[in-house]
């Protein structure tokens, strides 16, 4: 498209700070979220860098013990509640859901804007807690440590997380209603892109799980503030009840982080293999199965906490069962490559990297579901390695793949391909070097959240810190070239990848109303090979 006759799009439809802060356009709200979570990601990364520096030597010499405890706590809180949970849903889900189903916006645009403000208020409380001394309970807030023993700013952090929860709830409600009622003519349930199915499952978890963590955090806050004793053994309260309520949300929350990434991978693999997805209905169904089963396995975080043997067995068998739908997805993606016509642009590299890392993360999850083995590796670096493979190797790889894949659509600019491929390689190598040694550390018995550790664990910790520095570069490089591309990148056409999907049939970036006319859908999802390039 010629620059001179540049069309009106959502970015240049209106100008000024006011037009952004009061916008109800899902695409602009997605950009607001993108900026906020990027800031939170960088904050969480700073904490991670300090943690890895401290662990370079066995003695606790870089920071004090209290400081270290605050660092890993705030790393967890910021990365989970303020980066990973909103990452793909609030940025890419927000941007793409209406486009993918052929709608002009989400069902409740004002609620959508409200959810961003709620997120910002929650983030403000949490940042305030960080500035006024931080919090040292671990992101899990286990009682009675968090209610009676900790001398840090638990209350402000709890309020921050409580508030941010409502941002998730509002987003979930909005997505579910939008997917149910706003689909374009012809966009039947089984023509929906798998990205949409993944977000539907994610939203279910958001609306069913988040209220429980909200009320749990509320009880925690009340107990901390007024000593009401719900989790205090001195008054007959049960500290283990907190763990049950906490993990009832926080285990499914893992699926809030990983399911959207799985949706992203389905989009990217089909596009760059030029293949229709193998086993569409099985992938869609497995998303829902994960969402449902995910609510029944929380007890596997508590195999060593005085749980009865029978309860532990039930949670164990269900935890193995929830691994099956994930395996089904991996096999289906692999089969999609068969007889494809595959190219290896950066998003594809991130997606293939996702498959590799998620497979390792998922398989090591089985180790933790196996009762007798979990007793040994529970609360060790094995667990740390496992959930980083899922949440960083999986969720974050998916997020980076998605940002690259839809960057032209969001900004109207192409990023430079060569550094993007290099960054994908750096992230993959750096990640494995950081976290694979931690599996070994865990089986050796190094407990997590240790500020100082016995000397024999040092070699593996040095490897891990080395890997982390490579990983850090892998994250910084995209930040540079993506910002660079906003001014200097090649102008993107409507469908730079030759991808199927309604979002590619409108301009890049799309106009405020998304489509010139409501699109009518006549094909199944991923109708590769594309018939002809068409732009509505």
């Amino acid at each position, binding site marked *: 498209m010629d620059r001179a006759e540049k069309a009106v799009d959502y970015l240049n439809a209106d100008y000024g700070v006011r037009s952004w802060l009061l916008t109800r356009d899902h695409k602009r709200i997605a950009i607001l979220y993108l900026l906020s979570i990027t800031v939170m990601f960088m904050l969480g990364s700073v904490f991670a860098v300090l943690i890895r520096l401290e662990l370079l030597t066995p003695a606790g010499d870089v920071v004090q013990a209290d400081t270290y405890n605050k660092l890993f706590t705030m790393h967890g809180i910021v990365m989970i509640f303020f980066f990973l949970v909103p990452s793909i849903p609030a940025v890419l889900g927000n941007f793409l859901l*209406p486009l993918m189903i052929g*709608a*002009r*916006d*989400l*069902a*409740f*645009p004002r609620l959508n804007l409200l959810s961003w403000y709620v997120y910002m208020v929650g983030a403000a409380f949490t940042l305030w807690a960080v500035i006024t001394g931080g919090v040292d309970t671990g992101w899990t807030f286990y009682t009675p440590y968090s209610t009676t023993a900790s001398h840090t700013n638990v209350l402000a952090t709890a309020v921050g997380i409580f508030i941010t929860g409502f941002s998730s*709830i509002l987003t*979930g*409600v*909005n997505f*579910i*209603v*939008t997917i*149910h*009622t*706003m689909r374009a003519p012809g966009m039947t349930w089984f023509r929906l892109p798998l990205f949409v199915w993944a977000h539907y499952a994610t939203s279910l978890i958001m*609306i*069913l*799980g*988040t*209220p*429980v963590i*909200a*009320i*749990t955090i*509320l*009880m925690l806050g*009340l*107990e901390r503030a*007024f*000593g*009401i*004793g*719900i989790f205090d053994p*001195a*008054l*007959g*309260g*049960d500290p283990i*009840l907190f763990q049950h*309520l906490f993990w009832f949300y926080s285990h499914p929350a893992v699926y809030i982080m990983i399911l959207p990434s799985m949706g992203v991978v389905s989009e990217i693999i089909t596009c760059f293999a030029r293949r229709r997805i193998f086993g569409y209905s099985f992938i869609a169904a497995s998303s829902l199965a994960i969402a449902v089963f995910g609510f029944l396995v929380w007890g596997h975080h508590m195999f060593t906490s005085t749980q009865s043997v029978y309860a532990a067995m039930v949670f164990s068998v269900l935890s193995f069962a929830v691994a099956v739908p994930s395996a089904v997805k991996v096999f289906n993606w692999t089969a999609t490559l068969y007889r494809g016509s595959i190219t290896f642009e950066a998003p594809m590299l991130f997606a293939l990297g996702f498959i590799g890392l998620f497979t390792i993360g998922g398989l090591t999850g089985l180790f933790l579901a196996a009762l007798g083995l979990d007793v040994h590796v529970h609360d060790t670096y094995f667990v740390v390695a496992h959930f980083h493979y899922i949440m960083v190797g999986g969720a974050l790889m998916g997020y980076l793949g998605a940002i690259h894949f839809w960057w032209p659509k969001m900004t109207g600019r192409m990023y430079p391909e060569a550094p993007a491929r290099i960054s994908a390689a750096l992230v993959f190598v750096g990640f494995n070097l950081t976290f694979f040694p931690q599996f070994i550390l865990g089986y050796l018995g190094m407990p997590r959240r240790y500020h100082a550790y016995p000397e024999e664990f040092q070699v593996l910790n040095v490897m891990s810190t080395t890997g982390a520095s490579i990983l850090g570069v892998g994250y910084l490089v995209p930040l540079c070239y993506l910002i660079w591309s906003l001014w200097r990148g090649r102008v993107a056409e409507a469908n730079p990848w030759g991808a199927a999907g309604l979002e590619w049939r409108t301009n890049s970036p799309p106009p405020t*109303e998304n489509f010139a006319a*409501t699109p009518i859908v006549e094909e199944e999802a991923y109708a590769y090979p594309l018939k002809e390039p068409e732009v509505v």
Partner: protein
Amino acid sequence: MSSRTSTVAHQFDDAEQQRNASTLGIWVFLVTEIMMFGGLFTAYVLYRSSYPEAFAAASHHLNATLGAANTIVLLSSSLSMALAVRASQVGSRWGTVAGLVVTIVLGCIFLGVKGYEYASKFEENLVPGPFFDLPGAEPQSELFFSLYFAMTGLHAVHMVIGVGVLATLVVMALRRRFDADYHNPVEIGGLYWHFVDIVWIYLFPLLYLLGRH
């Protein structure tokens, strides 16, 4: 009808799609509310079964008469709310306003009685925390009052929000925003109000009546 097209937001194709979306929206939202109260109910049921004696003894210190009165008040408010919804469906502006105002008044009476009950708990030193004092009782009775305040408090917050929503609806009705074709906000407000009611229908027997001889 020009007034009708103006009430359809730009993202919707027509009024029916808008109505479907907002109705589904409120139902999904109520599911999240159930999950939220569910956390508290779970804690209550678990502790009640662990310490049945302590909880039964503590619940004797609640004023069942006032609780019953409040139940009647709240049930009546559901009736007036239903009448308001009905009036809005047939396009009766003043019927809608009257139903809503009666509902608001009843809601405020409920909150007033609740406030009185809270105040007397303060006087009797039955508020959990450093000043809690129930002579001769087991320590778990404090747990009962913690849950009592948490559950009825969360319910009262919902009532306050509900009164605010209804007041907004009154203003909208007075400004002729509703007619026989467009009255969805009243229905949604009604669903929310009924939900808050139903929560109380569970709270009252659980807290006031169970174990009372």
